[in-house]
């Protein structure tokens, strides 16, 4: 953020100097201490010239440098070109939609992103159904569709004290507008047997990643998505077809989807094995994403220029439904005030919140807390650790999915730091 601010200031100064040189700098409005001149268009040579590429598929300004980074200490891509985990730059996010190019990515074990010709792709629905069906992509696009906003979050999205930025602490979640066919529509079309309890969803990539999903979820709101943010789903997100299991941990959202098999028991696929535990509490908490939120501005690694007014901004979400309330603390969790919900809170979707804040320049700690429509409350890290502690042993790790509150410490010099200890 500070880097960007500096760039912008320099850009404005440069523009002003150029404008002055060509005789357009006569107007001197009072625009504040940084700006002696009205921002004007740069010299003719600095325009973005039209090109066939820019006509066909536009791109962002060269002054916007927000990028994804590999997540979790493993290279992505690695030496072989395999993609693993890639985190989205939440520190730069505005609104609720993650641009497709910046959407986080996770894979089963490191994958080559398959290069799928959509004309050759097929989805098979079979198993315990009356009418097995094979759909081409063209077939699926003939079926009744829905468009919905949903987040996806990786089970490994957790803040550690070694992390400095929100991209490291929370970058494994993103939110997009998804378009496709409800899984229930095609399951009804196939005629599911009364004693079928699960579906196994499987991708076409070399690992053939597969997950077991309960029938109640499959019939409720799972989506077969071919569209993402107004265009086809990106290859890293499963082009030409991915499953969305709204609110479930990331791995259930099977990409490059080729098969839905209707079965009568939990299939214990390799992906399911990753969730294997003998603790019923851990099993339950590693499944549906809990209520969660994070302040995106100001966040770790950013620099506030000084005391004064700021709009605190952030994102809240829950696998349990809509976000009903977000609260902000500017005193390390001692007192809480309601944040404003921006836009409309939609089920299992990132919801933007904001809070008007006058910073007095003294060191403080910012926190946000999400409450969802079914009454689940985002815990502090202390509360979550208390839950996992026993009389004899103090927990140091939040088991299951970690949805605990992220504290950001604003130092008196305006530096923002991860306050997880």
């Amino acid at each position, binding site marked *: 953020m500070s880097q960007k601010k500096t760039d912008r200031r320099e850009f404005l100064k440069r523009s002003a100097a150029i404008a002055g040189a060509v005789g357009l700098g006569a107007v001197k409005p009072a625009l504040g201490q940084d700006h002696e001149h009205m921002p004007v268009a740069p010299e003719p040579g600095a325009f973005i010239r039209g090109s066939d590429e820019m006509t066909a598929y536009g791109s962002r300004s060269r002054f916007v440098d927000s990028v994804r980074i590999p997540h979790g200490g493993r290279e992505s891509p690695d030496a072989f070109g395999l993609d693993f985990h890639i985190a989205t730059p939440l520190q730069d996010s505005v609104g609720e939609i993650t641009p497709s190019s910046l959407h986080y990515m996770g894979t089963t074990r490191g994958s080559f992103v398959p290069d799928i010709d959509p004309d050759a792709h097929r989805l098979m629905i079979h198993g315990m159904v009356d009418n097995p*069906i094979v759909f081409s992509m063209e*077939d699926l696009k003939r079926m009744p569709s829905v468009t919905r906003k949903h987040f996806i979050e990786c089970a490994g999205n957790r803040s550690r004290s070694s992390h400095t930025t929100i991209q490291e602490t929370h970058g494994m979640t993103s939110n997009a507008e998804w378009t496709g066919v409800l899984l229930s529509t095609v399951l*009804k079309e196939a005629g599911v047997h009364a004693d079928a309890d699960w579906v196994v969803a499987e991708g076409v990539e*070399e690992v053939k990643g597969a997950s077991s999903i309960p029938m109640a979820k499959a019939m409720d709101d799972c989506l077969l998505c071919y569209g993402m943010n107004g265009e086809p789903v990106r290859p890293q997100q499963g082009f030409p077809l991915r499953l969305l299991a709204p609110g479930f941990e990331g791995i259930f959202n099977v990409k490059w989807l080729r098969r839905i098999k209707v079965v009568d028991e939990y299939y214990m696929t390799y992906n399911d*094995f990753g969730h294997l535990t003998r603790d019923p509490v851990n*099993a339950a908490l590693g*499944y549906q994403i809990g209520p969660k939120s994070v302040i995106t501005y100001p966040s770790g690694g950013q620099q506030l220029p000084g005391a004064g007014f700021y709009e605190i901004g952030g994102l809240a979400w829950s696998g349990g439904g809509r976000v009903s309330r977000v609260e902000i603390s500017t005193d390390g969790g001692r007192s809480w005030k309601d944040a404003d919900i921006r836009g409309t809170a939609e089920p299992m979707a990132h919801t933007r919140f904001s809070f008007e804040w006058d910073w007095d320049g003294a060191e403080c700690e910012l926190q946000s807390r999400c409450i969802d429509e079914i009454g689940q409350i985002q815990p502090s890290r202390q509360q979550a650790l208390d839950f996992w502690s026993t009389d004899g042993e103090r927990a140091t790790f939040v088991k299951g999915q970690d949805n605990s509150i992220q504290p950001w410490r604003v130092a008196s010099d305006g530096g923002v730091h991860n306050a997880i200890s």
Partner: protein
Amino acid sequence: MKTLRTLLLLPILIAGVVSVQAQSPLYGVGRTPTENEIRLWDIAIGPKGEELPVGSGSVDMGSELYLSKGCAGCHGTLGNGGMAPRLIKRDAGPNADPWDYGRVLPIRSPYATTVWDFINRAMPLGAEGTLTADEVYSLTAYLFFLNDVVEDGTELNEKTLPQIQMPNRTNWEQVPDWLPGQPRLEGYPY
């Protein structure tokens, strides 16, 4: 007049009958796969092992394949020490709790079928889907032998593999029944 009313009602009555038969296609889009096509696609092996192809393999064959197919290169000669996940249980002493063997698929998995399924669908790295059914039975048998799940000399086939009693067969917790609008865990406030 009565006849006319009956005639007018007839399409509605027929529609009513059709909608009761919920199992017939509503849109009729897509095509019906052949039995053979389903068999070729269906690589998901459930705990009962019903989808397992006919075939067999032995611990001996598996130990050779483990080297010749390159498994040892990534998983280590004896199932540890490589870059890829460990395949041999950790030493946990006598009468060990199976969970103390570590997160090792061929010992921790509750079902033998999961091991067969994953080798078949996802191994070897870069040559996935090239192993024959017999080779997968052999490699599975060898990994079970390394972990003391089966004895040396064991042969596995589509009938015997699902019958293997893994030490964690019942020693794990299912996720709770999922319902829309339900909290993550009953009684858990967060």
